[in-house]
Structure formats: structure tokens, C-alpha cells
């Protein structure tokens, strides 16, 4: 069992209904060496099934690059970026957002 949890701030945006994006914060149990993908999976599976982030054809090998996001303003692949504390996750800037963290053209 995890001894501590981290605060995860995720940008939410639905172009069909929202005029601008907003942040939603989730509390996620911390596991050593967990990745941003693990964090997002935890949120989706346990806290909020409506969260959108790219994973359906994810390669997990730094090849497809479709899980690209920014973590604390730094771009990175969610499958390979390890988490050490509280984080803010945004979609990659300058891409058209399909929903939440999923963008067009990646």
C-alpha cells in the first residue's frame, strides 16, 4: 500500500460545451517510479471515467509519441515521464484540443 498521495492537477476542456479550459485536481496514491500514464490510468479507473488522454494505441516505448503532454510545463511522453511529487498536466500547446489532454495531429 502507498504511504502518501500526490495532488494531480489536470487540464479539462470539452470544445463542444466549454468556452475555456479549467483545472481539476485529483488525489492519487503515490507508488515509487510511477509514470504520468499510471497516474492518469488511476484517475480514469478509480476517480473520474470521463477523463480523456491518449492511450488506446500507446506503444509504451517512446516510439509513437502520441501520449505527449506537458508535466509542470515541460513536454514529455506520459508513458515514460516518472512522477516524484505533485504535478500539473496540460495538453501539448499549439495543438487543437479534441478533449482534455487529447489533441489533433499527434
Amino acid at each position: 500500500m502507498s504511504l502518501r498521495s500526490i495532488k494531480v492537477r489536470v487540464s479539462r476542456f470539452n470544445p463542444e460545451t466549454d468556452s475555456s479550459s479549467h483545472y481539476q485536481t485529483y488525489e492519487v496514491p503515490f507508488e515509487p517510479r510511477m509514470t504520468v500514464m499510471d497516474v492518469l490510468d488511476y484517475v480514469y479507473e478509480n476517480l473520474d471515467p470521463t477523463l480523456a488522454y491518449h492511450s488506446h494505441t500507446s506503444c509504451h516505448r517512446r516510439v509513437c509519441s502520441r501520449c505527449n503532454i506537458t508535466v509542470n510545463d515541460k513536454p514529455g511522453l506520459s508513458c515514460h515521464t516518472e512522477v516524484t511529487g505533485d504535478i500539473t498536466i496540460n495538453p501539448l500547446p499549439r495543438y487543437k484540443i479534441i478533449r482534455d489532454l487529447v489533441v489533433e495531429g499527434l
Partner: protein
Amino acid sequence: MSATSSTDVLVIGTGGAGLRAAIESFDQGVSTMIISNGALGKSGATMIAGADVTLDGGSASRIGLTGNELDSEIRFLRDIVIQGYYLNNQKLVEAYVRDAPARTKELIDWGTKYVWDGKRAVISQGVELNRVLVEQVRKRNIVFTDDVYMTDLLIDENSVIGAVGVDINRGEVKSYRAKSVVLATGGWQRAYSFTSAPGGMTGTMHAAALRAGADLVNMEMVTFCPNVILWPPSLKGDIFPYILIEMFGDLLEKHGRPFLRDEYDPLIYRIATTTEWNKLIFSLAATRVVLRGDGSPRGGTYYSIKTVPVNIIDEAEKLYPGWKWLRTDFSSLMEWLKAGNAVEVAPAAHYMEGGILVDEHAATTLKGLYAAGECSGGLFGANRVASAITQILVQGAIAGKSASDFSKKAKLKNVNKTQLDRVHTRLSAPLKRKTGVRAVDLKKRVRKIADDHLWVIRNGDGLKQAVSELESILTRELPRLSIQTQSRAYNKEWIDAIEVESMTQVLLASARSALFRKESRGVHYRSDYPLTNNDRWLREVILRKVHGKLTLTTRPLTITKLRPPQGKFGFEEGILRAVKVLGE
């Protein structure tokens, strides 16, 4: 539902098999469309392949590669069939060894960079192969569509006349009319919880083909890669220790003992560490260790290089500068291993020998439907020992040619509205249910069944339980799937619902086939029937839907060149016998 698009040939899947099929189809002069459940060159198993192309050494030397003049197509075929436990469809193997040189030469002519070539192999990388193939697709007027998850085939008078899928980003059901369809959708490894395969490989089109009336073959045959990383999460599912063990290192049980070396015939150990039999032998030995309670905390074994002198390890770094392999940096893992630690590894679902039944022209048992690459079955029998990259190129080109030939004589048919409505209703049903079962939870249950009963070592009781649990999920749980997410755009719950349905169907097909084959052969090992029985089971297991019911049958082997021996033998004896024959 949005409007229907039309094409002569529709290719589903954008790994190497789909890309090569689309190129061939277009070059035969017919309009060609290719659809990806991800993005062109960024989805499917090809992108993460090592990747080697294999061909016989004689042909290799004739096309200007190193090769081996003493080698020949027939020798290559013989090696593939003997190590495939004679279950291989020899007409498919003949096509493989016949076309491998032309496909290899074409790759090189198209500008594929390769790192090394040897007696029977050219080593490149999956990303590089995809780069070249995508470039060839873009040079042609081939229509491509990304992020459409295909789920169903459209049928008219027993012929395939199109397909249906979900546009993931827009959340719309889309239909496509075609004169012929090529399936190139890879394996269904994602039905297991631990796999080396990328997302999206959940057997949606295997399930669609079966529902539409096509035959599946050898669905019990699943290859596991024995030493795939379990932890840390960023490297989970990576096969790098499997690459390393060909050079040095060993797998250990929890007391630190090298179990394969300690417990098996020395010759078996040598075969496992020097030949393509490695996946089969190490997976079985490692699973036995885990089942008897001598595994690691995460349910695997340990890969260690502790006994290897450091300068030998450093020498090997020249092959993988900076300990980078493909696009992943393994330098910190290597430092950790060199310091004497061991990384936890386990057998991961890796390659499917079984799949949609095809003949040597890539034709399935349904008119107008073709299949190429890993989604097809029969080429590698009960154990794959030659390159799956060569498979996708050879079979992709054949399927593209056959599908275009068929399309030239066929007409576009109008889609039956009742049929389309039925598919649409089934796909959208979970969106309309506000309470019920969550697909993400059901996925875990389904994968647990695969992990518990369809892993490396199977037995009758476990397989019966798997069949009954999967049948119950099919009839009781899948009709109750519900989705809370209101937005249709990239609705993860909808993707999970689509995937869990096909996962259940292909696993049921696999469990029923595995229960039916009452023997052990190649990668299919049953503890209740440990002998390979050539007197009774030199037959392929076929699954088909008859009047809505899944029916099992067998057919005799397709033999053209190599006659199998009679008799029954155990696992080790079988390998030692085969080595003796191969060594002659």
C-alpha cells in the same frame, strides 16, 4: 451515423502488413483505402519491432547480402516446419521462403537503413521499416484515415462488401463500402494483462471475422517472450533483457539459482541460449518456477548479469551505444545490473501463431475477405522461429494482389440498412445505459481469466473454467456495459467497451481450441497432456460459427514438402529429436 465512403480495396490496419498490402493493391491499379485504429506508422506492433527480416542465405547472397551460399529455400522451409512442430501450413511456408528475397530487396531499394546482416537475417528497426513503408504509401494516391477503430464486417450473400468502425476522436460510427477487404490488424495480445504488444491489439477484427462466418485456426497457439521487464513501470513490457540474454546473463529463481542450467539437460540449456527455441524453453521453465512458488514478488523470475565480467559487458555496449535500444535509454538499468542487481522479468504474451484462416493467396474462407500478417493463422504452426517482419511483408503483398484481383471482377454493393442498424445499435448500446457494468472493470476480469488459465502452462480443468466464465461474461455482462462519459469525443469508456467485447470473444475462441487439443505441441503446453502426440494430433484446430454457434473441428495438415514423423514424445525429448534431425 455519418455517410458511407467507398473504395475498391479497403485495408484495415497500418502495421507493416497493412501498409504493404495497400501499396500492392494501389500498384495493381485499383482505388485503395487504408484505415488505422491509431495513426499511420504510429500504431500496431511493427513500430516497436527489433526488427529482423529473415530469408534463406543462398538467396541473401544472390541479392548482394552476406548470406550463405550453402543455404537454400528448402533448407529454410525445413527449419521453420520442424521447429513449428510440423503444424505449419506448408503452402504458406513455401510462399514465405519464395517471396522473402524479393520483399527484402525491395525494402533495401526503397532506402531502408539496416544495421547488420548475417547468414539468414537483416537487422533493422521497426520504426525504420514503418518510415519507409509510410513514405511509399504517401507517394501513392492511397486514401488513409486515422483513429477509426474498425469493429465489424458488412456481408451480402456470404461475401464481404465493407466494414464498420468508430471514429474515436469524433465519436461517430462510420461505414465503408468496398469490393474487397484486407485485414492486417495484428494479434490479440492485449487480451492478457502482461504483454510486449502495444495498445489496440485486442482482436476486434478476429472477432468480427468470426461473427461474419470466417474460420479461425490454431487459436490455442500463443508465444510468450520469457524475459520481459515487470518493473519499473516506464520499462514494463520491454523485451530488452530478451535481447541481452542472447549475449549473456541468466534467469534466476528467488534463491538466486539459474534454474534452466540447474534443472534441465545441458543440451536444452544450450539450445535455449543459442537458438530461436529460446522463447519456448525459457517461458516454460520460468512458469514452472513461478507456479512452484520460487518466483519473484511480482510473479516473475530475475534476469541477472552478475557473473559476467564487466569488460565483457562493456564490449557489448558497442552494439548498443550508450545502452540505447530502439528509442529507449537503458543506461541506468545497465548500471544497476552491473552493480549486481537483478531485474524482475516474466513471460509476456508476445506473438500469435493462430488467427484468421488463410490460404497461400491470403484468402480467408469468406468471399472478398483477405488477411495478412499476425492476424492470419497457420504459417508458423505451433512455434514461430523465423521473422514476423518477413511474414507481414510477404503476406501483405500477396493479400494486396489477391484483393485487387478480386475487386476487378466484383461490384460495389449497397449496404443493407437493417444490417448496418444492427451494428450501430450494438455499438451504441453501452452509451445509452446509465447503470450497469464498467468496461474497465470487466477488462480486468477478462484479463485475469487469460492470465490464470491461458498462460504458458494450461490444463483441462482451468480451460473448462475459462470457457464457462467467458461464456457467462458474453451472455450476462457484455449486454450490461454502461458508459458514464457524456461526450462522444475520445470517449475512453467507449473504446474500452469495444475492446472488452472482442477480447472476450477471441479468448473464448482460444480457450475452446486449447481445451480441444488434448496434447502439448510447441507453445501450447498442457500439464494434463504433456506429450506431443503425432499419432493423433497432426491436425489444425478450426473454429467457425454455424447457425450462431461456435463450432470446433479439425482438418488434416497441409503438407507439400516435409512429412512429419509418427509417435509420441515429451517436451525435452521432442526438442532433442528435432535438433538431431536439423543437425544432420
